[in-house]
């Protein structure tokens, strides 16, 4: 606990400032060299309706700046609207004043809202362009940032707004949301953009390590002042790169929305045939030769009205061929990023004994799935479907026995029998697929890359601002300058992963001979 005295001083200081009619945050945005303050409680926003064919999308914001957002985006300058009443308004961009959409707005003043905080809801048209524009506009309101996974629910929990059963399920809910967000982030991080962020993170770690080495060791060791000049240069370069990136209107590769469904399995199980059946055209080459598919074959589908991005992958096997090995690596990467994986198995490979067949399937699943460092892999039913292909080759009796055995064991994902050759079971399979996709589409995080992009952007902006602190304090107070680099790394770490003190020390001891 900080000494009560210092707290007392702070309180007195803030009080003084308030009396003179200045907001408390002025304390941190005053004269030269003091960082721009972060608001006490941040306001978060997110798309809270699902994805897919929907007429209306709901965007929610929660926190103290909700009122500001409502005012400057709906032109309600004179007082606030009546609480919890729907109003039809034009929704405008606060900067450009351009009209984005016409929709309903609802104002929920604290504490009578889902989160217990001031909240506002925008009910807008469901098209992706409108949603993106409104999210972007919200992000430009001071004090607002995109919500992290599960953040609305957490705030509701903190305000005591959740019932006991909801609280019990909270951990699982947060787990599901963070998982969805992780997969979404993985997709974005796997490309050029990911390499760029990792490169920045690497450079920032180096900067911090060198500043810290200079602080902790330069008095006793041979660490020249030149070390800091080097850091100055790196920081400058990083800032310039980030600025260019933030201003770049191209925003990199366009990320296609939709539920990411990946077909995976051994070679020659019929994965490409399944893809072709689902998109009703020969999108992928099929042949009896094992290892025909080497790269990812992607196709956008509409399944029961929900957008799906279906990927066919190379069959998983050890191969001496470097091209095929790369294909297998990409396949495994895709499985890790997928919302839903269809594991295709060739029925002809199943042992004839039903019990052994189940054991075989369990083993097969573990070999397809990313291990994630868990000794016993789990197959959440909502993320996997087991597709037994070439079922026409299976004698009826054997199949009945297998079904009987499958219904006895737990821990396996849902199983579908199909034959891409005779089309047997295909309709049933599509029905199962449809219901899985429908559930996944209910989660707004699952298929909207714009949200993740907005989040990344917010963190990058914080990172950029923190680097300015380094430069401001470079010659005044090195401890405060180093704090700037630390903050920058923390912000970037929210995209690329947290960096601990030990990691920085590792770099220090690798780069310098510390020998006092």
């Amino acid at each position: 606990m900080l000494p009560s005295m210092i707290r007392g001083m702070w309180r007195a200081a803030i009080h003084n400032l308030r009396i003179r009619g200045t907001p408390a945050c002025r304390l941190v945005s005053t004269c030269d060299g003091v960082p721009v303050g972060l608001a006490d409680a941040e306001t978060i926003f997110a798309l809270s309706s699902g994805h897919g064919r929907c007429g209306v999308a709901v965007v929610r914001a929660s926190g103290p700046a909700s009122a500001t957002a409502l005012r400057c985006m709906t032109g309600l300058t004179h007082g606030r609207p009546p609480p919890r009443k729907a109003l039809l308004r034009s929704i405008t961009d606060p900067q450009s004043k351009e009209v984005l959409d016409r929709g309903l707005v609802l104002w929920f003043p604290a504490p009578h809202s889902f989160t217990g905080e001031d909240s506002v809801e925008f009910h807008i048209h469901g098209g992706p362009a409108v949603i993106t524009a409104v999210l972007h506009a919200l992000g430009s309101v001071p004090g607002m940032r995109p919500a992290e996974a599960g953040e609305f629910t957490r705030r509701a929990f903190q305000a005591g707004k959740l019932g006991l059963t909801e609280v019990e399920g909270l951990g699982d809910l947060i787990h599901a949301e963070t998982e969805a967000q992780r997969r979404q982030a993985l997709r974005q991080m796997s490309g050029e953009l990911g390499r760029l962020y990792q490169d920045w993170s690497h450079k920032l770690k180096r900067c911090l390590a060198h500043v810290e080495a200079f602080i902790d060791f330069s008095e006793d060791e041979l660490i020249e002042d030149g070390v800091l000049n080097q850091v100055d240069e790196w920081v400058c370069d990083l800032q310039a790169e980030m600025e260019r990136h933030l201003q770049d209107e191209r925003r990199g590769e366009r990320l296609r929305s939709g539920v990411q469904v990946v077909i995976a399995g051994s070679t020659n199980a019929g994965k490409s045939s399944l893809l072709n059946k689902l998109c009703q055209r020969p999108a992928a080459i099929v042949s009896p030769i094992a290892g025909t598919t080497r790269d990812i074959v992607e196709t956008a589908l509409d399944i029961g009205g929900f957008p799906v991005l279906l990927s066919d992958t190379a069959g998983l096997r050890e191969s001496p061929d470097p091209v095929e090995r790369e294909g297998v690596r990409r396949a495994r990467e895709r499985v890790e990023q997928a919302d839903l994986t269809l594991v295709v198995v060739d029925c002809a490979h199943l042992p004839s004994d039903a019990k052994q067949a189940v054991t075989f399937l369990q083993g097969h699943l573990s070999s397809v799935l990313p291990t994630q460092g868990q000794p016993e892999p789990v197959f959440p039913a909502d993320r996997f479907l087991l597709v037994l292909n070439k079922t026409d080759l299976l004698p009826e009796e054997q199949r009945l026995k297998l079904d009987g055995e499958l219904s006895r064991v737990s821990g396996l994902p849902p199983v579908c029998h199909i034959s891409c050759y005779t089309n047997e079971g295909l309709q049933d399979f599509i029905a199962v697929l449809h219901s899985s996709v429908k559930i996944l589409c209910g989660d707004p995080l699952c298929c909207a890359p714009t949200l993740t992009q907005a989040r990344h952007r917010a963190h990058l902006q914080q990172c950029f601002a923190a680097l300015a602190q380094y430069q401001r304090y470079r010659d005044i107070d090195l401890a405060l300058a180093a704090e700037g680099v630390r903050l920058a790394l923390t912000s970037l770490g929210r995209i690329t992963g947290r960096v601990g003190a030990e990691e920085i020390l590792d770099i220090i001891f690798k780069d310098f001979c510390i020998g006092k």
Partner: protein
Amino acid sequence: MLTKKPPALQSFLSLVSRRASHLARQQYDVIIVGGGHAGTEAAAAAARVGAETLLVSQKIQTIGALSCNPSLGGVGKGQLVKEVDALDGLCGRAGDWAGIHFSILNRRKGPAVWGPRAQLDRQRYREFIQSELLSTPRLTVLEGSVEELLVSEPNPEEPGHHRVTGIRLANVSHPISASSVVLTTGTFLSGSLFMGQSTSPGGRIGDAPSSAGLSQTLRETLGLRTGRLRTGTPPRIVKDSVDLSLANVHPPDSHPTPFSFLNTHTHCKPEEQLPCYLTYTTPGVERVVRESIHLNCHIQEDAKGPRYCPSIESRVLRFPGRQHQVWLEPEGVTSDLLYPQGLSMTMPPDVQLRLIREIPAMHRAEIHTPGYGVQYDFVCPTQLSPALQVKSTQGLFLAGQINGTTGYEEAAAQGLWAGVNAARWALSMPAMALSRTESYIGVLIDDLVSRGVTEPYRMFTSRAEFRTSLRPDNADLRLTLKGFEEVGCVSTVRYQEAVRVRDSLQDALAALQALALSTHSWRKKLPDMRMSENKNALLTGMDVLQYNDVSFEMLASAFPECFSPHMEFSQRLKIEAVYRPHCNLQKKEIERIQKEENMSLPQDINYLSLPVSLSQEVREILDRVRPSTLGAATRLQGMTPAAIVHLLNYVRHTGRKERRTRRDKPDRKEERKAAQSATNASLPQ
């Protein structure tokens, strides 16, 4: 208020018990084993808290000895000294008494990372510590070798859980009983010394090895996991044989700054301070190391040595072809020896001589005592609670190198805290922990108990994520008040001084805050100030003091009626003004962590079978580390936000059940408030 000169050593030694049979009693509240930096702070702290304390050391003359370097403090370490002093420990005042060369390191890098440091006179330091212990009420010092740690048979309901009952000394038949025992055995736990190709048992040259019994009790009876670490010390050089004209003189600060908040000046007068000398290794040094590698057991061993403070052998092997710094440090006012910092080595003595003579300033140098290496056992510190008590053994506390740390300051800090908690345990008071958000001591202990060590642990400022709040200048405000009001380890005199400082600072800050002028008026009053922008808003004295080229002295001469009464704290006020905005930004994060740290996890949870949805991986991490608070759990690598929420739900649930079984009538409102703040605390943002 510098402590009076210690009484002559002779009279001191006659006053301590040298034989167990002379002890007035056979029962103490707390027994401290070991008289190094950890042991002496632990003994003094336990006695200050109010426990009848016994300090057992193998050799009374070496109590308070500086076994390795003759210096105290530095960057990161200086912060620890200030904090130990703020909690009324010994080392800060001892440093002020024994220092012969004071300097503030990092003076140009910002007050948060200033490193107060001093070269010490070995003899004066030891005398001061011994005299302090002698004049400490409730403390008895005994010379003896501990043969065995006495523990109760484990409770059949809790297998593997013991309770300390006392110790047994070598050559003494009757045991000495105590409620708590603090082990501060340093490098003596299964220690072995290395020089060249010869090894011998021991923890320090010239001292008898400690008995194997202790090590055995820890490992076999108590089942504690141990590891092995190594360290070393350089040869001591005869001063007259060194040509100091070939080295660079390194003068001390012209105005020595004392460590202790109680002292306004150091014992050593500014002009009596001695200089240090800086010189460098040559290619010849590297050659000698390479040629003698086959004669060097120590560096061939695979026990873990530190990446900092490594021997000269590992330095030249890891970073070949470079010059390495060698500091020549005085050992005392009357000492005729020099301590070559950076030349720790373990080769045979004749090779050591050849090596140092490769350095120009030492081309004719003579070695007084050769350098040597030590390997020793440490107890994996994740088996300790934040009170430094062994989790499985009630009343057993560990501090210092036995926990895998290196350095006097790290040892002193742990010793003090272990002593405090040993006394509190013996006196049936609840255990106390220091948070990493309020002190470097908290950072040190939290790092040790929640992460463990793989190499000797040393403090760096970069380990403290809130170092702009945990500054050397404000250690008294952070710790002294709490130390008196909550911990009970601070004297009234020191407390009153801290209260005076707090009140004066508050007055001064209020005065700074109250003075608000326009930019124009400030420019007129302070013509030297470069104020870049024109603001309409008024600026307070506090705002203006943040400017780089404005000092409190300038304000005081411009507005003598407002500020001259506060000149005593001019430096602290300037620092406070510069850092306050940043500390404000950190406050929220600090409060979140503190709330998490206030939620303790029961120590008897069976994580492997807990009926909560946790992944196997998380269960194993929790089972291995057994964090004592939710805060410690969140910092574990591999923990997920969802796991934390599940854990929190479980703890709240069982907490509620326990309350119900106690049939207390819970105050609904209070309970909900507590639960809510706990929730706020534990949810990662």
